[in-house]
């Protein structure tokens, strides 16, 4: 049962990576995508220059580099709908395998690409902006960046399930979520500047805890247990999101069967 599930996930992921290869080659990923990522992080880090504060430059650089992992993971919101265009949704519902499992696996290419580009942005841009990350200790943050990517991916799956019902909104929803997370999760300004209710919201969303852990490790001012607590919280947010997402996919399949909204063909 579990091995069947893993096999389905693997095939779904393979189809996701195949999509990815139709968009990027290694060369265009570096010259096109990575270049944009570096520019995006620099754009925000430059605000530190405008403010004339090296500390704030560092704050923005770290926050926006980690946001890249979240941003790319959120492409899952749009690419979940791609499965609909292939016409495979009714076939998946008719098949004994779970639609949810396929949809969970089919966008992991973003997770991989996001972790890579966020990491590269952080380590390539730091010297340019005069930020000392204190290597090699800083390398510990790479799995933490992956964790932020993963929990955001799981959260994105929830939205992907919702957008399956409103295909034309797929890019809008992904973008708004990304910008909201960018605003309230501590990437640009400390979470504490926001009203209490926004802080509470931020705490149950991805990025917030993971980013706090990353900042803690890089500043070397946070105790080991505190870092571990933040990591645990980020993992909990991710796992809970995954659960909700799977329930959402199941409901989509069920309600589609009832309403006849699952169309055959294109």
């Amino acid at each position, binding site marked *: 049962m579990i091995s069947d599930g893993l096999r389905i996930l693997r095939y779904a992921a393979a189809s996701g990576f195949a999509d990815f290869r139709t*968009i990027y080659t290694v060369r265009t990923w570096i010259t096109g995508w990575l270049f*944009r990522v570096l520019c995006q992080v620099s*754009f925000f880090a430059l605000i530190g220059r405008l403010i004339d504060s090296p500390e704030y430059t560092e704050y923005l650089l770290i926050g926006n580099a980690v946001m890249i992992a979240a941003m790319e993971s959120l492409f899952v919101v749009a690419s979940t709908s791609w499965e609909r265009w292939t016409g495979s949704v009714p076939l998946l519902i008719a098949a004994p395998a779970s639609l949810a499992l396929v949809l969970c696996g089919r966008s992991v290419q973003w997770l991989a690409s996001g972790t890579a580009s966020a990491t590269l942005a952080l380590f390539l841009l730091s010297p340019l902006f005069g930020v000392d990350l204190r290597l090699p200790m800083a390398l510990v943050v790479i799995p933490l960046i992956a964790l932020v990517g993963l929990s955001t991916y799981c959260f994105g799956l929830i939205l992907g399930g919702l957008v399956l019902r409103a295909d034309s909104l797929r890019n809008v929803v992904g*973008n708004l979520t990304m910008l909201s997370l960018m*605003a309230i999760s501590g990437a*640009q300004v400390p979470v504490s500047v926001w009203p209490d209710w926004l802080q509470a919201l931020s705490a149950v969303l991805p990025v917030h805890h993971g980013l706090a852990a990353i900042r803690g490790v890089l500043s070397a001012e946070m105790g080991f247990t505190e870092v571990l607590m933040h990591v645990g919280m980020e993992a909990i947010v991710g796992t809970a999101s995954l659960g909700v997402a799977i329930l959402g996919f199941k409901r989509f399949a069920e309600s589609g069967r009832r309403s006849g909204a699952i169309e055959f063909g294109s």
Partner: protein
Amino acid sequence: MIRLALAMARFQIAAMRRSPHDLMALVNAPLFTVIFLAIVRYTGRDDLTGYAVLAPAMITVFAMALLASGEIIANDRTDGRLELLVASPSPVAVVVLSRIAMITLVSLVSVAECWLVARVLFGKAVAVPHPWLFVGTLAAIGLAMAGTASAMAGLFVLTRSARTFQNSLSYPFYILGGVLVPPALLPEWLRPLTQVVFLSWGTDLLRDSLSEAPVQRVLPRIAAVIVLGGTGFLLGAWLIHRVLLKVRNDGTVSHA
């Protein structure tokens, strides 16, 4: 010809109302404003409030040029309308430019949108001590942006790689265009590059129009925006001409 242009502009409004994708940048604008204003408030740099309101508006104007205007011809091609358009008695360049002009006009609404976000959510009313300069610069930026968009619209049809890099054009342009951080604060080696980007002249003028101090050298700077933008128009017209030649000579505009 004017009647055709007006009809195309009206049509573009109808088309945009049905396309969340085209209006996405306008939906994003308030969130960008919130982010920049939060930074201003956190750092206690109230003097930069105007910067924080202008930046999201300029981001919106460019994003719509990139995503909505830039895809006009490409979408007509994929949906099988380009050939029908060529067969009609109307000049394709006029059709495309009228539609782009409308998109650009709509994108300028973001200026008011971002101003309102600052006023309502942050209680900051950005004053405009040089209103004529402000409006004139916005008009010049609109014109230049439409020119840039027409060049992109042609480019995205003619070369496949341009479409791959479409997503990558935004942030480099925001940096070089001095959208938030004035070009003067960029690293030395980047500054010559900003001189050829029309927006860097435009955003500097806009920021100047928001400060009480008298503004120096207005005309040459506005001229720089218009001349650089005009180059975009020429390039755009030439690229659209190339697209049509390709359609009529090869039967399709296949990617090179």
